[in-house]
């Protein structure tokens, strides 16, 4: 997993509540057995006017010029600004894979769905919860400033705006440690092989039907 330490990134606003993982990456693309290549189909049904299927040449498809991902001003965005309950619905990890493939490393929203929130950390994506009023302020700022960027500092747990406002944010200590160091969860857990084996033996003895 890539490390995440600090990012000074262009912000793309996605002004809808309850954006579900079906919308982030529609099911027809889940037929892939790979982890990469989902970026061009992120938000497929919103960003194109025609119906997308795996294997299509996306560059020759009909673009929906009204959908924010197609706006020229957000082309290099790496921070996604979103609304309540972002990432709800299906557990598909293809959703964070697709967002990462599009170049996003940070998602800011008032709330996230649990599974999506978890899946982000496993893929070097940092989901940040901010109070709804602060998210509102950011939406207004992005709207009125072309090239609006935010400085996200994981170490210090702050988001700084270009005009010097600093928003602190919470992040779980363990997840922070993993992101900062690009650590693989499995490797960490396997350091506890003895504890797992001991637990297992005890558990099996108590519940032999398992």
């Amino acid at each position: 997993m890539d490390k995440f330490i600090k990012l000074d990134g262009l912000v793309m606003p996605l002004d809808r509540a309850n954006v579900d993982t079906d919308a982030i990456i529609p099911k027809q693309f889940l037929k892939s057995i790979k982890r990469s290549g989902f970026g061009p189909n992120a938000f497929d049904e919103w960003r194109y006017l025609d119906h997308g299927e795996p294997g299509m040449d996306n560059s020759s498809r009909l673009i929906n010029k009204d959908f924010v991902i197609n706006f020229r001003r957000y082309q290099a965005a790496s921070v996604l600004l979103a609304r309540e309950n972002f990432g709800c619905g299906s557990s598909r990890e293809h959703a964070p894979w697709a967002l990462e493939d599009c170049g996003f490393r940070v998602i800011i929203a008032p709330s996230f769905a649990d599974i999506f929130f978890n899946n982000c950390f496993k893929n070097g994506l940092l989901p940040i919860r901010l109070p709804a009023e602060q998210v509102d302020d950011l939406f207004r700022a992005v709207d009125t400033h072309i090239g609006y960027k935010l400085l996200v500092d994981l170490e210090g747990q702050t988001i700084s705006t270009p005009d010097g406002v600093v928003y602190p944010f919470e992040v779980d200590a363990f997840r922070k440690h993993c992101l900062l160091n690009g650590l693989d969860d499995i490797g960490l857990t396997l350091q506890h092989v003895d504890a797992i084996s001991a637990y297992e033996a005890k558990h099996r003895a108590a519940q032999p039907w398992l």
Partner: protein
Amino acid sequence: MNTQTLYDKLWNDHVVRQENDGTALIYIDRHLVHEVTSPQAFEGLKLAGRKLWRTESILAVADHNVPTTGRAQGITDPIARLQVETLDSNCAEFGVNEFKMNDLRQGIVHVVGPEQGSTLPGMTVVCGDSHTSTHGAFAALAFGIGTSEVEHVMATQCLLMKKNRAMQVLVDGVLGTGVTAKDVALAVIGKIGTAGGTGFAIEFAGSAIRGLSMEGRMTLCNMAIEAGARAGMIAVDDTTVNYFKGRPFAPQGETWDKAVDYWRTLHSDAGAVFDAVVTLNAAEIKPQVTWGTSPEMVVAVDGCVPDPATMTDPVKREGAERALQYMGLVANTPITDIAVDKVFIGSCTNARIEDMRAAAAVALGKKVTVKQALVVPGSGLVKAQAELEGLDKIFIEAGFEWRDPGCSMCLAMNDDRLSPGERCASTSNRNFEGRQGQGGRTHLVSPQMAAAAAIAGHFVDISKQ
């Protein structure tokens, strides 16, 4: 304080070790696997040269991509075929127990697990699928995980997680005629919202819940995820214990007795404290129909499509406006005036034998008037049982299509899907934009309501029939 919630008991019984910040390593008893969220996990294992920690804990089945007709010819879509074949070859390589597409026991993973007794009370159950919450109906701690976590469980038999808060959803009283577990689930979501359960594990309790069959309880826990909760659960009682007698993976003989003794302890203690409590009066719940593109956008069948203009929260109002536009609906239209084009009876929410029976009872002697009405049983065994009872004939005579088991039009990864603009009464669990096919319009309902809509061509209030 020694009183514990059911969630506390299940959690405490599975903690391998605990970090100071509350992160715990939780042991996983059962791992269900399907073709869509596992290939990258198996690949990750191979790349890292890791083995499965406990092969016997895994049960695999292909369900999302499989066709529901003409199975003898195999899967025609080459990409879907590759994914199913990849599951087959991974299971063969790692020695995992798999029910292949043409196995009688094949079906939707959340129907198959309990049906085989592969899910048991007191277990931790995971699957790379959000509707794993279904298995909580048996007082198991069951939740969906992402592919990285699938790989993590494969390699370590554990997951790193933090404990959620506990919510009790209390439904007391008696459900009215024609009111089902599906309506309870939708009513709960309508009340707390799709994010209402975020960060919580929900325990459903109360006399109305105890009155539900295991099938009904699974329907309810299945939709806990649509309320934002990762897990839903229900305490063990006689209904739970009786369900497992004679199931292939269930314990037998002396072990059975020992298991039952333990299972009987799986309930919240009297006086156990929950972080949140939500109460509903069963008698007030009517058959529910969703009108929008999120399961919380739901009303009773005798109600009307709401008017966004009356909503004060701007985010809600905008969401409702967009939903009505997508759904092609006008505010204040009576729900029973909404005409449907297609009907789908199936999915891990409502494709068990009881659902088949309920829908067939409505369809008996009637004729379908919509363009297409599919009945997709949840597993090969559900299908066989339904055929034994003659339900297939009732459906076919009424004009329904009787299909082979799988996820089918719940998410439309195979050929079963809506065309743009088509409106569907569906017994599945998600009415998201494009869920059942791009531009398709989904209304979530119970099996009875779906069958009645197939016959009338529009929604009808089943409780008044």
